[in-house]
């Protein structure tokens, strides 16, 4: 079967991971001496086999690079980026869609990657903070955050910047009040809000999509 796993058609992976775990554990208990079985469990061997067993293919473009991946259904876009692709610029704050630290763009729209299952991004273009600018050539929003001191500890900053870029491109940065409203999904516990608003207003004042 291709990447599409059509509902209503026979499943390519029939047995569930838990069924597999039960079977493999029973086999291990039967075939191995108890200490060896304990070692196998300690090393998470059957867990690793089960994970491989349940992975599904995912084609997604991340920061301009086409990726062909294998992903477990329960993996969020955030965990895929950080754990599998080593793109640790996107931060895990609350992991429940409340803080905005994980904000990335999917097909140009800002979303919370912690509440996005990676498999739902099939065929999409994802942009993270790593894809926005480079060390040699910062994105105008990154420059503005530095100029206006839009952070202290910096943990929320990648999410703030991804959100800020989208805020302008959506047309929701026409006044400081509007920026505050449309940036409310990004929490900054250091309280750099005033400077963040200044940074966004400056980039906005230069006009155009960014």
């Amino acid at each position, binding site marked *: 079967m291709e990447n599409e*796993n059509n*509902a209503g058609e026979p499943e390519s992976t029939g047995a569930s991971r838990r069924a597999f775990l039960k079977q493999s554990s029973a086999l291990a208990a039967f075939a191995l001496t108890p200490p060896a079985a304990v070692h196998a469990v300690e090393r998470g061997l059957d867990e690793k086999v089960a994970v491989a067993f349940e992975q599904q293919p995912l084609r997604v473009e991340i920061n301009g690079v086409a990726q062909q991946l294998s992903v477990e259904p329960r993996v969020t876009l955030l965990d895929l980026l950080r754990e599998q692709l080593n793109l640790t610029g996107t931060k895990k704050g609350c992991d429940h869609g409340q803080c905005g630290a994980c904000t990335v763009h999917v097909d140009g729209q800002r*979303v919370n990657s912690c*509440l996005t299952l990676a498999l739902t991004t099939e065929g999409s273009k994802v942009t993270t903070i790593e894809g926005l600018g480079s060390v040699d050539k910062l994105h105008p929003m990154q420059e503005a955050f530095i100029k206006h001191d839009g952070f202290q500890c910096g943990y929320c900053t990648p999410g703030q910047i991804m959100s800020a870029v989208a805020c302008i491109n959506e047309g929701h940065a026409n006044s400081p009040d509007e920026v505050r409203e449309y940036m409310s999904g*990004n929490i900054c516990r250091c309280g750099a809000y005033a400077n963040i608003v200044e940074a966004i207003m400056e980039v906005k004042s230069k006009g155009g999509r960014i």
Partner: protein
Amino acid sequence: MNPFQFTRANTTQAAVSAVSKETGAYFLAGGTNLIDLVKREVIIPERLVDINRLPLATIEETASGIRIGAMAKNSAVADHPLIKKHFPLLSMALNAGASAQLRNMATVGGNMMQRTRCPYFYDHSMPCNKRSPVQSGPFKGQLNGPAGCGAIGGVNRMHAIFGTSEKCIAVHPSDMCIALAALDATVNVTGPKGNRSIPFAEFHRLPGDAPQKDNTLLPGELILSVDVPKNEMSKYSHYLKVRDRASYAFALVSVGVAADMKGKTIQDIRLAMGGVAHKPWRLAEAEVYLKGKEATLENFKQAATLAMQGAKGYGENDFKLTLAPNAIIEALQIATQTV
């Protein structure tokens, strides 16, 4: 997260079939609430059926109104020219909810299906009648936490003052649904037994003896679209949301108003409240009272008094008995431009 199976549906029939044939299968739309519930193990699914590829995101004009596809994103609906023109109340309510990121993910159908944010519902160590037993899989039959209602006699500042039962005093958290209830929307669904339409007021339900049921959908039914009939009330609309911070917080109390005015006379009016009940709370008696009357503070006060009949506080939320009528009056003043 617990592991689950994942299926991508390409047709509504396939989606309905996949969810109908397996207990523990759920439709996955924007996921902003469902994935959170799965992470917190309030829901332990066997399978998620991804419906994001279904062609259900259209917003279009019909003979009698506007049809909004169930998969239209909250942000797309809020910013759509047809919605802004005909139903500014819906636009305002949508923009009052969640954050810009979440509105880019959340769908109209998913917004209607979201669960309460009652803290006892989310906490396994606390009693909750709404967090129903696990239906299938290796955790089948487990209570998923003790039964009972922790909020009655507990921390209930956010909770309901209307339509409660001794089993549950949770509120429905949606802002969008308050506007859709006020605007007399209709919900079009499909399911194993075919298509049907549900008046918005009958979509969500009161807790009664079955607080685990938020709505009147039958097993396997999928929301296709919402029809909002045109009216003459776009000019005099307001959504007033009172909350603990200026943005990105659930309502303590919210009021949706849409009125048709001729001079100072209210020709027709729709009123609904959020943050006060297990479903969007339509203020029918206040509407009847205001129809044909002048838009005056006295009349608004009387309407608010009528609306508050039967309200009951549970301790920490007693302040809503004062806040709600004040919010009704203020929303009416703003909507009718008589502040």
